[in-house]
């Protein structure tokens, strides 16, 4: 059923701090992932300017031909987005779980510098577990 192709985390200034690919044939090298993350950051901001009504906080879901992209922006401006299959369900809750893992294992890590790429083992470990659980739960249905 639905599973994610990749996960990106962007800092509030627009730089990519985390990128993980979960088995798409569109695996990207570092430079490309950096460029795409910055591009997404800018487009997210532009979409707020084009809103016909007030109170827009940016793109939450982008639907393309072969994939969907769900984006979650925290109150501090850190953006988490996943590329998944079209029509995937429960991506918002997955993003919130990832946000919680980020706050627990990255932000509370005293050796982590803000806006730097994430290199926390515990975060990677728990993230893999969360994604795996999500996948198993979906396949089990």
């Amino acid at each position, binding site marked *: 059923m639905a599973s994610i192709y990749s996960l990106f985390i962007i800092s509030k200034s627009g730089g990519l701090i985390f990128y993980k690919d979960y088995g798409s044939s*569109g*695996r990207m090298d570092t430079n490309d992932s950096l*460029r795409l993350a910055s591009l997404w950051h800018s487009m997210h901001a532009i*979409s707020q300017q*084009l809103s016909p*009504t007030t109170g*827009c906080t940016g793109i*939450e879901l982008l*639907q393309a031909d072969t*994939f969907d992209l769900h984006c979650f922006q925290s109150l501090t401006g850190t953006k988490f987005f996943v590329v998944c299959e079209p029509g995937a369900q429960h991506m918002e809750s997955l993003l919130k779980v990832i946000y919680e893992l980020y706050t627990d294992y990255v932000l509370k890590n005293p050796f982590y510098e803000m806006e730097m790429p994430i290199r926390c083992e515990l975060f990677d470990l728990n993230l893999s577990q969360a994604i795996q659980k999500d996948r198993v739960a979906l396949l089990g249905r």
Partner: protein
Amino acid sequence: MQFFGGSTAVEASPAPAAPPGTLTGLAGNNANVLYIFNRNGVCLLYREWHRPLRTLDAAQDQKLMFGLLFSLRSFTAKMDPTSSEKGNLGVPLLPGQGCSFHSFRTNTYKLSFMESPSGIKLILVTHAKTSDLREALRYIYNLYVEYVVKNPLYVPGTPIKSELFNTNLDQYVKTLI
């Protein structure tokens, strides 16, 4: 050549048949804004039904919209997880080349997009809870073909000034949910 397999008559029943005005509080008109661009970025039509907030003047707004779409298409073509060989970011894409998006949603609005093979881009901005509007965009494209393209006095690449087109468009938009 039947690109959409549609009929020549505009009276073809639109696919999104639904009771008008059910979800929104907007009297009658259920869309906010419509843009039509040609492949060179010229805005052929900007039609506004409900837009309380305008951050930029009209020309800037249209350029920004076109730029956003151009970048989004590059982005989706590069991000496509199902194809492994892609061009570089920023390379101008032909209509239909690479993975393209059909809509995006924010918390306040939903933008639906359609590009014809000739590069005519239709953008419809509606409220956030709208369902899939691809059929609606195809219908509007058919209206464009009937009332604008087939008008012998219309010069391609110039802004659209057809009363019939505007009237039919307004009528159709009232039936969207």
